[in-house]
């Protein structure tokens, strides 16, 4: 039975093609219909597929559809095909669902912007590539989607390309991603070399014949290189630097691409490649360590940011770190669970921030906000749900997902990682409530009415008169996402709280179908199953208590510093030492990269590649041959005297040579 899954990616592609090629002449309503219609249809079809999928018998999962051979080279061949299992189904629903909501929101947010059709064409093409990425049945097709979303991200970050900072941020994102893609590509080459194919099913079956590697080996290398790719796409240390800059793009783009979907592609890829990582403990450990370090590193930067979108950007980096932390302790289900709830609440946070920016005519600096609770109550309530869920208060979504990650990290024996994770959770809570208090409480610190032409976002102040609530077309998606951020975690209530962890069980076949045949060394990381005895349950409850306490600590800290004694932070900043300034300057990582990598490359490019090779050797050869030809011609030019008798002389001379040659030949 075929579900005709190819329809799903092709719908947004069609929308992108129509809007991109013809949209310039279309009225806005038609652009909306095409862009939103294609996404809505894709979402509806995805829902239908989900219903069909649940009805499939277990032996037909994963559901693989093969359409055509894409390319053949020697013994290697790749095909157009789709691989639908529980993992890609979850991703499919998240991407189409959240994507559709953000499309709706964009109608309101982008209303006053130029390049309206262009924006929606890019957004649709992003959807196409993202769906290709998650639905592909081989790594090569996944890589097409992987690069495609990078392209869409570049185009949308630089959407206001007349602004230098936006154009540069786009370039930075693209180039940083190239570094990661390089690693991913080498991982794929290794797969081709050793397994001869990139089809998921064949590769995974071949890998499951391998034993768990005790020390570094082939699978470790593949896993580490894949992690390099994932850390580029998903903004992990050391390649996270592009994501904060990516906030130059329109806010709905930040929500869709740089929070909810594209940046989670790395997590998806790691989870998809779980047979590799399960047999490469070193690579798996690297994933966990990178994730944890990123989580706390980015969270600490987020504490001192004043640009509302930058806070959220660092928060995204930090939350992605949690997802990798989950994957890194082989709790892929927990990582994907957090991916899903994060898609809801981070999209909500960004869209709420967008509503605030929109309502303030482009202001992004939190120091010029405040007291917005009474100007935009609906946004306030949506933001409140999002803030409490990311901070990890039960019974909201992120409480369950983040806590599952932390608990499984502890249960897998990585106690230090767990401790760092909890500290990062407290920081998360602190910077989010700081944002919340600075934005919605106290007095409005912005400029009065007309004077708000900051245009920070390229967002022109359209007859702007003081802070105001956003139109319904923006508020409704916020409300839907708020509901999802509230209840989205309930699909995965752990057994310790009387639930049955249905989300994990649903995903289980993806992550354990190949494990069971192996020694099972890594199944030690799955305590919730089988040995969930009474003692474990009480321990788990204790750890939940610690998580909530960390969240509460962050809340109290933020409340004290940014509400009760709002004058205190400025004083502390004045008397603060080097560490404060270091954090405030984002640990000067950009400067470090600039000095150690970018400057040397620029210098080498200028002096060796440009002035040395290009100017001297290549241009020298080309110019030299041209000059040589000119010199020779200058000499030969004098033969062209215009004198008939000299011409005739040359003819006679030539004839004489020919005759002499013939005679000489004849003589021999």
């Amino acid at each position, binding site marked *: 039975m075929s579900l005709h899954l190819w329809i799903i990616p092709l719908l947004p592609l069609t929308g992108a093609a129509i809007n991109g090629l013809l949209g310039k002449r279309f009225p806005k309503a038609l652009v909306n219909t095409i862009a939103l219609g294609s996404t809505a249809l894709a979402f509806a079809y995805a829902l239908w597929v989900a219903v069909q999928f649940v009805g499939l018998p277990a032996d037909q999962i994963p559901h693989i559809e093969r359409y055509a051979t894409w390319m053949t080279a020697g013994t290697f061949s790749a095909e157009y095909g789709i691989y639908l299992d529980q993992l890609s189904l979850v991703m499919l629903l998240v991407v189409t669902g959240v994507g559709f909501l953000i499309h709706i929101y964009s109608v309101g947010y982008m209303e006053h912007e130029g390049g309206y059709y262009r924006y929606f064409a890019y957004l649709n093409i992003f959807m196409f590539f993202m769906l290709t990425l998650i639905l592909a049945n081989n790594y090569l097709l996944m890589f097409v989607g992987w690069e495609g979303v990078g392209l869409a991200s570049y185009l949308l970050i630089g959407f206001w390309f007349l602004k230098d900072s936006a154009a540069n941020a786009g370039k930075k994102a693209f180039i940083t991603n190239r570094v990661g893609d390089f690693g991913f590509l080498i991982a794929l080459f290794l797969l081709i070399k050793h397994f001869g194919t990139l089809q998921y099913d064949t590769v995974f079956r071949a890998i499951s014949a391998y034993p768990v590697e005790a020390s570094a080996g082939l699978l470790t290398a593949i896993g580490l290189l894949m992690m390099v790719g994932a850390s580029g796409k998903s903004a992990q240390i050391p390649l996270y630097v592009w994501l904060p800059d990516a906030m130059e793009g329109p806010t709905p783009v930040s929500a869709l691409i740089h929070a909810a979907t594209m940046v989670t592609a790395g997590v998806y890829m790691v989870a998809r490649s779980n047979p590799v990582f399960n047999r490469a403990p070193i690579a798996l450990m690297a994933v966990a360590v990178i994730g944890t370090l990123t989580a706390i590193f980015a969270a600490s930067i987020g504490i001192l940011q004043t640009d509302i979108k930058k806070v959220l950007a660092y928060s995204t980096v930090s939350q992605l770190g949690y997802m990798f932390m989950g994957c890194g302790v082989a709790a892929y289900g927990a990582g994907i669970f957090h991916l899903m709830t994060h898609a809801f609440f981070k999209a909500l946070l960004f869209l709420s921030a967008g509503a605030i920016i929109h309502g303030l005519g482009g202001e992004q600096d939190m120091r010029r906000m405040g007291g917005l609770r009474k100007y935009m109550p609906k946004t306030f309530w949506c933001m409140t749900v999002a803030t409490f869920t990311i901070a990890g208060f039960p019974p909201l979504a992120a409480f369950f997902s983040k806590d599952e990650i932390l608990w499984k990290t502890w249960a897998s024996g990585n106690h230090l990682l767990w401790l760092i994770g909890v500290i990062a959770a407290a920081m998360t809570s602190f910077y989010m409530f700081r944002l919340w208090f600075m934005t919605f409480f106290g007095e409005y610190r912005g400029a009065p009415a007309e004077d708000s032409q900051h245009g920070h976002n390229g967002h022109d102040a359209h007859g702007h008169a003081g802070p105001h609530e956003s139109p319904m077309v923006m508020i409704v998606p916020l409300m839907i996402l708020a509901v999802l951020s509230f209840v989205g975690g309930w699909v995965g209530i752990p057994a310790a709280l009387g639930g049955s962890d249905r989300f994990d069980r649903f995903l289980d076949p993806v992550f354990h179908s190949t494990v069971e045949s192996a020694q099972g060394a890594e199944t030690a990381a799955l305590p919730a199953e089988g040995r969930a005895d009474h003692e474990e349950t009480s321990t788990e409850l204790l750890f939940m208590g610690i998580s909530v306490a960390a969240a509460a600590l962050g809340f109290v800290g933020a409340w004290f510093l940014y509400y009760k004694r709002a004058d205190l932070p400025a004083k502390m900043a004045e008397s603060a030492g080097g560490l404060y300034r270091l954090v405030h300057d984002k640990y000067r990582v950009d400067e470090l990269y600039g000095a150690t990598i970018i400057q040397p490359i620029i210098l080498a490019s200028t002096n060796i590649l440009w002035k040395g090779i290009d100017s001297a050797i290549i241009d020298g050869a080309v110019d030299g041959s041209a000059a040589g030809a000119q010199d020779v011609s200058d000499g030969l*030019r004098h033969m*062209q*005297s*215009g*004198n*008939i*008798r000299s011409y*005739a*002389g040359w003819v*006679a001379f030539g004839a004489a040579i020919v005759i002499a040659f013939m005679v000489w030949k004849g003589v021999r």
Partner: protein
Amino acid sequence: MVPLSYYLVLSAILFACGVAGFLIKRNIITIFMSIELMLNAVNLTFVAFAAELRALSGNVFVFFVMVVAAAEAAVGLAIIISVFRTRETLNVDRINLLKL
């Protein structure tokens, strides 16, 4: 019977005279006559070989050459006249518009 080589040597001498005249003379009419001389040197070779080899095609070719020479003479003289009308000289050293 006169041997073939005599004809060929005579023909070569005539051709060389033609070439020499073409290269040395400045008057365009003389040059023109030198060309005719070369053509006829070639004609002589043709008929000599035709007689020697008893092949008719040599004789036929001579007629072609004569026709071409006549046509050339007609066109060439017309050109010479128009050149003389515009430049009032027949000295080829002064007719050098082809110079770069």
